[in-house]
């Protein structure tokens, strides 16, 4: 748990870094050797000279239409999940900081009552 504060990187940390680098290099060498040794096809009948956008669209909206729709749902869920995660703390901070601002959320019943009775905005800050 206790990490070194302002001291230079210790020898074990550097050793760990080198070991990770060695592992990655070994993996890359192994992968490259395997890729170079395998009898992959060496030439292609290049269809990219022709138009590839219409068949791509046909695949996306035809054969892979279900996965496309599921992916759109996934992206929507991710969007709203990200918004939810990012907004939650901001509401708490505003609630803790202002103590009943212009929002007057449903959870702040006491603050709302005070604001209705007083009719004035609390806090010294403008805004």
């Amino acid at each position, binding site marked *: 748990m206790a990490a070194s504060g302002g001291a230079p990187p210790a020898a074990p940390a550097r050793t760990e870094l080198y070991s990770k680098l060695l592992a990655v*290099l070994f993996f*890359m060498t192994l992968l490259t050797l395997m890729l170079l040794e*395998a009898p992959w096809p*060496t030439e292609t009948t290049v269809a990219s000279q022709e138009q590839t956008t219409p068949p791509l669209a046909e695949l*996306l909206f035809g054969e892979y239409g279900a996965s496309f729709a599921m992916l759109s749902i996934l992206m929507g869920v991710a969007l709203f*999940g990200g918004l939810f995660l990012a907004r939650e*703390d901001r509401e708490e901070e505003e609630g803790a900081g202002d103590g009943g601002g212009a929002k007057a959320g449903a959870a702040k019943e006491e603050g709302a009552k005070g604001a209705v009775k007083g009719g004035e905005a609390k806090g010294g800050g403008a805004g």
Partner: protein
Amino acid sequence: MIPLSAYLVFSAILFCIGLYGVLTRKNAIVVLMSIDIMLNAANVNFVAFSAYSSPFDLSGQVFAALSIAIAAAEVAVGLAILLVVYRVKGRMNVRIFRELRW
């Protein structure tokens, strides 16, 4: 004509760069970027194999497009989680996630 093995070696190099970033860096955003580099290596493989094995079938390109969209969703959620962790802890170090164990 560029052989298929050149694309595969390029993809392997890209993947290893991402792997190195994931293993060594401590900033969570950099780790997220390294994961995306690894995903892009997979996308290169998808397109290369599709172009060389069955040139008239564009399924590899479709898979690459879907993979890019999945990566975008992953990055959105990951960044939101990192934002919350940064607000709570005040740091972006990946070792913070050890404290999330239960």
